[in-house]
């Protein structure tokens, strides 16, 4: 299919902030938020691990299997045509969501992890050699550490880590110093899953580009929470996961500048990624199919498209503003609890409230909160080097989404009171 260049997105009319009434209505769109625990709706504050799905996403997947199921880009028949059309529509939805210039720059992957591995394989292997360096930050998720370690082991390149402050902010002066001619790729989180820090990705990218270094941004924790614009960021690659942005599990997106992607060899070989195959020579397909070998997760892609539609119907700008206010409210609540320490206090922060308590270990906190009907995550959040940086083994982490309310945070605070009752 030809790539489609969208017309410039029209500026939507300014809408009022999300009100409590609207949030209550939004909660009704999410069946899981009405799971009962101890006679009350369960309070879900583990959104950084995975988000809940609105009914429209669930119904879209069901509809696909009930009325559209077919393989894409293959059949001449009716079902294949509508499945292909729904699949490619979802690509254009993601293109608009990320403000990518071309729909062929949207590659569907299994998730952020696969997207990063794709870059490590298809960009890293051909371009990175012994003595080269790959630059990441001290707040990366294991998925933005381990693929680079594997690449380094294979090539003899070195992994360099930009340090962070005690509040969890990148030290930009150190970053600047590390940008040497040896650096062949910068890969950093847009938002830290364990701290909530929003990194200055535009500045990070501009600084790397001054040295001619390409940049990959791990947007897994940013995509559900803010207006994204990969052209404004200027990055070469941007990765995100469907399940963290209210879409299905097992689907994600890699955005890559066409110029970069065109120069890269395929990630996996198989069907759909070829134009022609003989035993002597195979000619690869063009973008985006070159990077989408095999029958894709069609239901997941279409479901992700429905999630984007849902987010658009609310407006990412309103979501960001609402969550910002909610994060401040939650921060104040937690700060007022004696013996509780918030880990991650960057000035620019998304809705992640990571904390430790003097008298209770993170797992004991998580256990007691669960019994109070409050779901949070306790552990290292797949960021063990970050935990080591702060000299802790684990944190308890409440992470927000737009369907959370002040009442949810009041319940969190009350449940932490129970933890103190047991352990203080």
């Amino acid at each position, binding site marked *: 299919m030809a790539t489609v260049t969208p017309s410039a997105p029209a500026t939507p009319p300014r809408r009022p902030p999300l009100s409590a009434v609207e949030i209550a209505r939004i909660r009704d769109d999410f069946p899981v938020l009405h799971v009962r625990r101890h006679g009350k709706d369960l309070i879900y504050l583990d959104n950084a691990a995975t988000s809940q799905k609105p009914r429209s996403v669930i119904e879209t997947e069901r509809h696909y299997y009930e009325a559209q199921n077919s393989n894409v880009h293959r059949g001449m028949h009716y079902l294949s045509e509508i499945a292909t059309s729904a699949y490619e529509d979802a690509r254009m939805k993601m293109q608009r969501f990320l403000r990518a210039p071309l729909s062929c720059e949207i590659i569907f992957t299994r998730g952020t992890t696969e997207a990063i591995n794709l870059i490590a394989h298809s960009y890293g292997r051909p371009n990175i050699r012994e003595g080269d360096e790959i630059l990441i930050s001290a707040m990366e998720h294991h998925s933005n550490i381990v693929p680079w370690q594997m690449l380094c082991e294979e090539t003899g390149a070195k992994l360099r880590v930009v340090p962070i402050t005690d509040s969890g902010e990148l030290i930009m002066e150190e970053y600047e110093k590390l940008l040497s001619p040896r650096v062949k790729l910068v890969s950093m989180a847009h938002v830290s899953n364990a701290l909530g820090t929003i990194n200055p990705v535009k500045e990070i990218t501009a600084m790397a580009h001054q040295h001619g270094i390409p940049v990959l941004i791990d947007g897994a924790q940013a995509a559900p929470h803010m207006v994204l614009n990969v052209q404004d960021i200027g990055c070469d690659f941007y990765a995100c996961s469907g399940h963290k942005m209210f879409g299905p599990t097992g689907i994600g997106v890699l955005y890559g500048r066409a110029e970069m992607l065109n120069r890269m060899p395929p990630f996996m070989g198989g069907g759909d990624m070829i134009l022609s195959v003989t035993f002597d020579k195979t000619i690869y397909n063009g973008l985006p199919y070159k990077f989408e070998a095999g029958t894709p997760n069609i239901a997941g892609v279409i479901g992700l498209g429905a999630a984007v539609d849902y987010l658009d119907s609310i407006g990412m700008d309103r979501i960001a503003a609402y969550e910002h206010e909610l994060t401040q409210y939650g921060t104040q609540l937690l700060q007022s609890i004696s013996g509780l320490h918030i880990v991650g206090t960057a000035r620019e922060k998304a809705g992640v409230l990571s904390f430790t308590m003097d008298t209770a270990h993170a*797992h004991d906190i998580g256990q*007691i909160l669960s*019994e109070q009907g409050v779901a949070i995550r306790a552990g*290292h959040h797949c960021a063990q080097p970050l935990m080591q940086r702060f000299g802790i083994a684990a944190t308890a982490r409440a992470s927000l989404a737009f369907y959370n309310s002040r009442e949810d945070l009041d319940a969190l605070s009350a449940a932490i009171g129970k933890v103190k009752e047991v352990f203080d």
Partner: protein
Amino acid sequence: MGANRALYEQVILEHNKKPRNFREMPDATSKIEGFNPLCGDHFMIYLKMNGEVIDDISFAGSGCAISKSSASVMTTLLKGKTRSEAEALFASFHQMVTSSPDTVIDEEKAGRLAVFAGVREFPVRIKCATLAWHTLLSALDGKNSTVSTE
């Protein structure tokens, strides 16, 4: 708090707050590290053996209330015990915490370890309760590599 009240028995909370034999042992005859990479529980178990007898036992490190109190209770039970007595105690402890939650606990046989029966309701916490014990068994076997729950 229902089930959690059973999990966090008073004895457990008390040992968590004031762990017994919670110290390093410079003259230990063996020491071994126990680690649960999933939750970061991390303990060192120290043993001073006199032939087959555990003359002294202590532990250091950090972990959740269940793992820490389990290590603490373990040290109080094993001082002066022989290797085979320790192994038998672990076997019955392990059987208890991995038994079905409906199984009636033989309080007499379980003794002070009966307070950990609550973990049966929370399968992910069984590893917390048994970490120190697994580590101890490795130390008794004369192994010296880190014991991991994973």
